[in-house]
C-alpha cells in the first residue's frame, strides 16, 4: 500500500526540473530563502547585542521551507509548524516585521509577546499556534485535518512539520497512526537536519530513514534532498494534492542540515566538530540555489545582488520599527486566560 516515490538525492548539483514553477515563482522562492537566512542571522546578532534574550536558528532549512511554502496554498491550507520554521512562516505570508515583533517580544506580536520567538500564530494566514513541546502540535494537525474532512472541505489540507528528533515521540506515532486510519488530508513533513540539539540521528533511531516508517502505518512515504528547494516543493506539493484528493496522509522526509547551534543558548562545539559543519556548508542551499538560478538564466547576477540588498534594507527597517514598539503592559498578563475573566473563585 505504501508507495515510496524516491526522489534521487543528488548532492553535487541541485536538480533543475522546474516542476511547473515560473521564473517569477522561482525567484520568489529564492527571496524567501534569502529573507529567511537574513532574519536568522539578525536574530543571532540582536541576541549577541543583548537586545533580545533568545533566538533559535533554521540556517540550512531554507530550501525545504521555501519549497514547502510554495506548495502551501495560502487562505486554504493550514500550517502547523514547529519552532524552526521562519522560512515556512514567511512563505505562508508572515512579514519580516511580524517575525521581528516575535523576536523582540513586543505587544503587537501575535501572541502579545507571550510566546518564545518563532512560535508564530496567525489565523489570517492559517498558521496555528504551537508550543515548544516536541510533537505536541502533531495531534492538533491531525484534528484540524479531521475537521476539514468532516466538513467536506475537499480543497483544503494540513501541512505540519517537525524535526528528526520529534519522530521518537509517542504523539508522533499516535498522530500518524490516527491520520492513516482515517485517511486524513495531512502532510507530515520531517525536516531531518540530523541533530536534535546535541543528539545525532544515530542516537535518535536505529536506521537513518524516517520515511520508511510510512509503510508501518500504511501511508505514502517519500524522501527528498532538503537542500534542493524545487525537489522539496515537488514532494510536498504531491503530498498536499494527494491529501486534498482524499488519498490520505503522506510522510515526507527532507534531508537537510542544521548549520548553526540549536539556539543562541546552545554551543554546538561541545558536541560536533567544525570539520563536520564546514563539510556540510558546501551544500548550503542559499548560495547554491542562487548559482542555479543564475546558471539557468532565471535571474542575472546583478538582479540577485539587488534582491539581496532590498531584503537587507527591508529587514533593517523592520528591525528598527519592531524595536521601537512598546512591550506589553503588566496587566496584559491577566488577559485571555478564559473567555470570561480569569478568577478561579466565583462569588
Amino acid at each position, binding site marked *: 500500500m505504501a508507495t515510496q516515490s524516491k526522489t534521487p538525492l543528488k548532492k553535487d548539483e541541485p536538480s533543475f526540473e522546474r516542476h511547473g514553477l515560473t521564473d517569477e515563482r522561482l525567484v520568489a522562492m529564492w527571496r524567501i530563502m534569502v529573507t529567511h537566512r537574513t532574519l536568522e542571522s539578525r536574530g543571532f546578532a540582536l541576541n549577541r547585542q543583548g537586545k533580545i534574550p533568545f533566538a533559535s536558528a533554521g540556517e540550512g532549512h531554507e530550501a525545504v521551507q521555501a519549497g514547502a511554502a510554495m506548495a502551501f496554498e495560502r487562505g486554504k491550507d493550514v500550517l502547523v509548524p514547529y519552532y524552526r520554521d521562519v522560512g515556512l512562516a514567511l512563505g505562508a505570508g508572515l512579514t519580516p516585521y511580524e517575525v521581528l515583533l516575535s523576536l523582540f517580544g513586543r505587544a503587537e506580536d501575535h501572541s502579545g509577546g507571550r510566546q518564545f520567538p518563532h512560535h508564530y500564530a496567525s489565523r489570517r494566514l492559517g498558521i496555528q499556534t504551537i508550543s515548544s513541546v516536541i510533537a505536541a502540535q502533531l495531534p492538533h494537525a491531525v484534528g484540524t485535518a*479531521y475537521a476539514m474532512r468532516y466538513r467536506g472541505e475537499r480543497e483544503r489540507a494540513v501541512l505540519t512539520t517537525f524535526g528528526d528528533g520529534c519522530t521518537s515521540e509517542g504523539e508522533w506515532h499516535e498522530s500518524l497512526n490516527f491520520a492513516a486510519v482515517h485517511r486524513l488530508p495531512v502532510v507530515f513533513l520531517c525536516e531531518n537536519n540530523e541533530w536534535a540539539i546535541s543528539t545525532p540521528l544515530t542516537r535518535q533511531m536505529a536506521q537513518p530513514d524516517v520515511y520508511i516508517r510510512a509503510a508501518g502505518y500504511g501511508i505514502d512515504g517519500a524522501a527528498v534532498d532538503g537542500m534542493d528547494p524545487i525537489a522539496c516543493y515537488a514532494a510536498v506539493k504531491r503530498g498536499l494534492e494527494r491529501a486534498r484528493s482524499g488519498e490520505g496522509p503522506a510522510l515526507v522526509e527532507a534531508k537537510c542540515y542544521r548549520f548553526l547551534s540549536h539556539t543562541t543558548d546552545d554551543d554546538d562545539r561541545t558536541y560536533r566538530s567544525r570539520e563536520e559543519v564546514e563539510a556540510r556548508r558546501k551544500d548550503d542551499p542559499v548560495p547554491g540555489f542562487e548559482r542555479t538560478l543564475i546558471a539557468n538564466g532565471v535571474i542575472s547576477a546583478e538582479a540577485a545582488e539587488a534582491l539581496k540588498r532590498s531584503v537587507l534594507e527591508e529587514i533593517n527597517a523592520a528591525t528598527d520599527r519592531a524595536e521601537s514598539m512598546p512591550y506589553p503592559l503588566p496587566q496584559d498578563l491577566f488577559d485571555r486566560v478564559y473567555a470570561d475573566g480569569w478568577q478561579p473563585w466565583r462569588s
Partner: protein
Amino acid sequence: MAVSSTSAASTLMNNVEAVRATLYEAMKNDDRTVILGEDVGARGNVFLITKDFIGEFGERRVIDTPIAEASIVGIAVGMAMEGLRPIAEIQFADFIYPAFNQIVGEAAKIRYRSNGEYTCPLVIRTPYGGGVRGALSHSVCVEALFYHVPGLKIVAPSFPADVKGLLNAAIDDPDPVLFLEHKKTYRLIKGEVPDGHYTIPLGKANVLKQGTQLSVVSYGLYVHWALEAAQNLEAEGLSVEVIDLRSIRPMDKSAILQSVEKTRKLLIVHEDNKFGGIGAEISAMVAEEALFHLDAPIRRLCAPDVPAMGYALPLEEEYMSSPAEMAQAMRDMVRF
C-alpha cells in the same frame, strides 16, 4: 437551579442516562459536535453512555480511537482550534496521564499563548472515583492534579439534573472543561431531570441542606453520603448544612463563605487524598477570608495519603470514607 429551562416536565434517570441524554441532545443540536474516545462506537462506551450513537450519528461523529490518550485529547484540541466542538472521552480517569501534557500544556494554554487568537472549546469527559472495586487503575480521583491549572475548568456533578445542566454548560463553554463523572453514582443515583435544554452556570455551588451548626462542603459521590449523614443527625438535634460544590474550578466562594459565616465551622469531605487536595485550597481560602468567623479548626475528611485504594474489599473500605464516618466527624465538629 435550572436556567433557561424550556419545559416544566421532567424524567427520572440515573447519571449514566443523564450524561447519555445530554450528549445525545448535543449531537442532535450541533453537527460541530463530535465524540472521540476508546470504545465509544459500536460498544457505546464501556458504561454504554454512547450506546447506539454510532448508528444514528455515524462513524465520522462518533470516533473509535486507537488506544492513545495523548492523541485523543491532542486531536480534540486541534478540532476545537478549527471550529468543531469535540467531546473527548478518557475511558477511565486512571488512563488520563498520557494526556497530561495535552490537557495542561496545550488545551489550557491555547487561548493564552495565542493571545486569544485561537481558542479551545473542548470538553474532556472521564469517569473517576472509587467504591466500585476498581483497584489501583480504575478508581482514582484526578481533580487535584488538574485544579491547579489556569486555563482549565473542572466540573464534578453528583445529581442527574446537575449532570445535564452542567454538561450543557461545559459544551457551550468557550474554554476547555474537564468533566468528571463519578462511576459509583452512575447507576446508584437516580433523580428527576427537567426535559428540554437548560444549563447550570459553572462555578455555582448548590446548598443541598440548610443548617446552623456546621458547614459541610463536598462534591461527587461523597455529597450523597454527607447528605445522608447530615439528615440522620437531625434526629440527634444537630443542624448541619451540606453544600455540593458541583464545579471545582471555578469554585463558588460566596456560597462557602456565607455558610461558614453562619455556622462558624467548616468540614470538607472529599474522596481524593488529603495532601494538596481540593480541601486544601478551600481551607486556605476560608482562612484568608473568614478566619474571624471560625469557631473551630477547619477539618478535612479525605482519603489517606496512599497512592490508591486496593482491590481487596478491606483496602477499598479503609481508603473510602463512609456516611457513618462522616456523621462522627460532623458530631465532633458541632460539639467542639
